[in-house]
């Protein structure tokens, strides 16, 4: 299925998204997120569904879990050879699945718990950089192999089908996570490729996205400056990489990173107080290539954090709710109420306004 990667098209499409985080760090089964995303069945078309879960591998929390798909046994062999060369594979297994009538043409699905040693010849690269490099290398050099996720204590599960079927296929009810994000996909170009489903992930970033990034062409070229190869021809991919770039590499505060991606209009900037204005101008001036234009609403997961935000004119829907310790973010309120019939509060965040869920003080998950 590697031909899909060279399609001269970018992936576009509409979708449903849902995310739940328990800020107390309490972990819960994937059954709920499946129900939530199932409620928005109408928003997807059966060509993609996926999930990311955080806190699912507490026993191996310090290892990167690489979840991969292979279209051929050769690809698997080749990948494993590369892994052996680059890192320590502590444990490997097939990703557990169950036969499902709605799921066909499944690839080989395997995961590896790994750690990397520092590269002495390149001391400026930390383990995360090396993992990113590895991730990119597999995706770009090995035919028919593709990394779903490669973060610590998290994993992405995705494939071709409706998301609820994918969830059942991956037996997500057997996992427990403190954050679940989910996606139902309505692509406009693919004949169905498992790698093309959301979430897109790098390190522990995982992102589900509804909308289309009209600025994709420049975002992609901007990211290339920093070593990110956008191999998936998908606009969503760039959002994941931008988060990694802006927050992990550049160390920007979350709010600033979000502002870079969905900045205020210049006319709003002009009305800001002087210091804020200078800051906003600088962000726009420097991070123009990171500006995400076009309609989008995303939910981004990372260790200990779940972020929802949408484009600055809010062209895609996003509803949030809190109930108890949990933060809910979804495309439709009904999807939240399916699993939380009586939330404490329901609200519609403004366009460009990030909604952030974070583990309560003192809670350790990884």
């Amino acid at each position, binding site marked *: 299925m590697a031909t899909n990667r060279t399609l001269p*098209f*970018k992936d*576009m*499409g*509409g*979708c*449903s998204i849902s995310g739940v985080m328990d800020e107390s760090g309490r972990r819960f089964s994937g059954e709920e997120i499946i129900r939530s995303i199932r409620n928005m069945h*109408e*928003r*997807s*078309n059966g*060509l993609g569904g996926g999930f990311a879960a955080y806190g699912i591998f507490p026993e191996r929390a310090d290892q990167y879990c690489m979840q991969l798909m292979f279209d051929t046994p050769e690809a698997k062999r080749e990948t494993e050879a590369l892994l052996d060369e680059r890192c320590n594979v502590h444990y490997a297994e097939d990703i557990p699945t169950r036969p499902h009538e709605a799921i066909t043409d499944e690839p080989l699905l395997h995961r590896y718990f790994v750690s990397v040693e520092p590269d002495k010849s390149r001391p400026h690269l930390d383990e995360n950089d090396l993992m990113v490099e590895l991730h990119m290398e597999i995706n770009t050099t090995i035919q028919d192999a593709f990394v779903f996720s490669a973060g610590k204590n998290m994993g992405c599960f995705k494939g071709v089908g409706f998301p609820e079927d994918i969830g059942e296929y991956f037996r997500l009810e057997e996992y427990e996570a403190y954050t679940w994000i989910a996606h139902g996909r*309505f*692509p*406009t*170009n693919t*004949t169905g490729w498992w790698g093309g489903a959301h979430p897109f992930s790098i390190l522990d970033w995982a992102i589900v996205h*509804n*909308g*289309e990034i009209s600025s994709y062409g420049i975002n992609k070229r901007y990211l290339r400056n920093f070593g990110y190869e956008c191999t998936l021809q998908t606009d969503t991919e760039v959002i994941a990489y931008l988060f990694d770039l802006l927050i992990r590499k550049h160390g920007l505060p979350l709010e600033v990173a979000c502002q870079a991606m969905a900045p205020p209009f210049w006319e709003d900037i002009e009305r800001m107080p002087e210091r804020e204005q200078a800051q906003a101008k600088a962000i726009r001036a420097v991070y123009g290539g990171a500006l995400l234009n076009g*309609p989008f609403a995303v939910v981004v997961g990372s260790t200990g954090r779940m972020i929802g935000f949408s484009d600055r004119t809010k*062209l*895609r829907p996003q509803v949030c709710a809190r109930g108890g310790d949990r933060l809910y973010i979804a495309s439709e309120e009904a999807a939240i109420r399916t699993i939380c019939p009586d939330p404490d509060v329901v609200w519609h965040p403004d366009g460009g306004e990030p909604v952030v869920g974070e583990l309560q003080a003192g809670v350790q998950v990884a």
Partner: protein
Amino acid sequence: MPNWLIEPDFVVERDPDRCIQCEVCVRQCANEAHEFDEELQEVFTDSTRCVGCHRCASLCPTDAISIRPAELEFRPNENWSAQAIRNIYKQSEQGGVLLTGMGNPEPLPIYWDRMLLNASQVTNPSIDPLREPMELLTHIGSKPQRLEFSGGETPQLETTLGPQLELHVPVMFSAMSYGSISYNASEALARAANEVGTYANTGEGGLHEDLRQYAGRMIVQVASGRFGVDVDYLNSGAAVEIKIGQGAKPGIGGHLPGEKVSADISATRMIPEGTDALSPAPHHDIYSIEDLRQLIYAIKEATRYRKPVGVKIAAVHHVAAIASGCVRAGADFVAIDGYRGGTGAAPTMIRNNVGIPIEFALAAVDSRLREEGIRQDAGLIVAGSFRCAADVVKAIALGADACYIGTAALVAMGCHVCQKCYTGRCNWGIATQDPYLTRRLNPNIATRRLVNLLESWAHEIQEIMGGMGINAIESLRGNRDHLRGVNLTDRELNVLGIQMAGE
């Protein structure tokens, strides 16, 4: 300030020996290029006002008028063309967006002309269309992947076919709203569609009450302005088309200026008289593909699933993906309008520079839908400057179910493609609401001419099919074996999915 940088496009010449001072030309020029001097009792002409529409010359009883391009040459400059210079004069004078009408006139390649059709010789027989049935009947709508039959002695069809459009000629009239064209023009299109057994499209301007009698042969359009759209309107037509884009102006909306919103148009569009009818660029309830699905199904719900609901898009870069998305969103047909498609008014820069040729768009979309196995989920209609029956045959061979014609239909009614539709002063009574001008289009004549056009094209299509040895249009549709390319690069042939001539 005198607009002394504006130069005439044409020179109008009057042969004094032939002119009988009858003043027919004076009365026919809405641009007031001709004027009768009472004192001298003589007609004079101001060439700067001439748009080259030929109305005066056509009606001059002594053929005393000739019109030729003004030979006011700038120093030759391939880069700074006369048009480029004049546009700057105009904009620096008036400010504002350059406006134009009709389809893209730029000298870009016309791929229809680089594709040639096949004919039978010796090894297989051609068919005489004068003697034998030549079936053009076309059904547009979603078809199931397969049919289900009940068992038993006499198998019974279990599958219910969804609503279909039935075309006797695979050519329909594309969306032209009442507002952009006159009532008489709208009436003629509707009546001709009825007579021939094809469909006219309301465009986004609603359906005039008096035209509802023809609605069984009309596709009603729902565009971003939602003009004239209510549940009765949706249910009145044979099908509903959601207009997302238009080939002449992909990605932008349109403005029908308030002065054109007459009482009659106001009633048709269901908006107050005299207010601008603004069609925003997007549908404000569609910002993503699942929103399109939402609208498609909202319409299906409102029409109780009795009407095909289609989507019209402009041919742009990712057209195959977009079309696929439309099909997957539930569209029963997808209409694709190429970059040469016409318009009543569009910003010149957009018309001339945005979009892609329909030939490539069609080839890409048909191929993609087949690759994805969803080609039969929706009909495929193409638009964007079909000039003759051969263009139609080529389009069908590339994979279209039917074509939409706009400009060709207008030309049949008398349009001279002067590209001044946006001024509202169409001397042929087509693209105008001025009651002095709209009278010029007698719908009886216009209907007759449209019917003649479609019938002659139908006959030509049959002739060409006969030559190929094909007597049913199903066998032509998507049959790219009957196309060969000339003067095309490998890459172009590849996208078109056809072979080189001689292969």
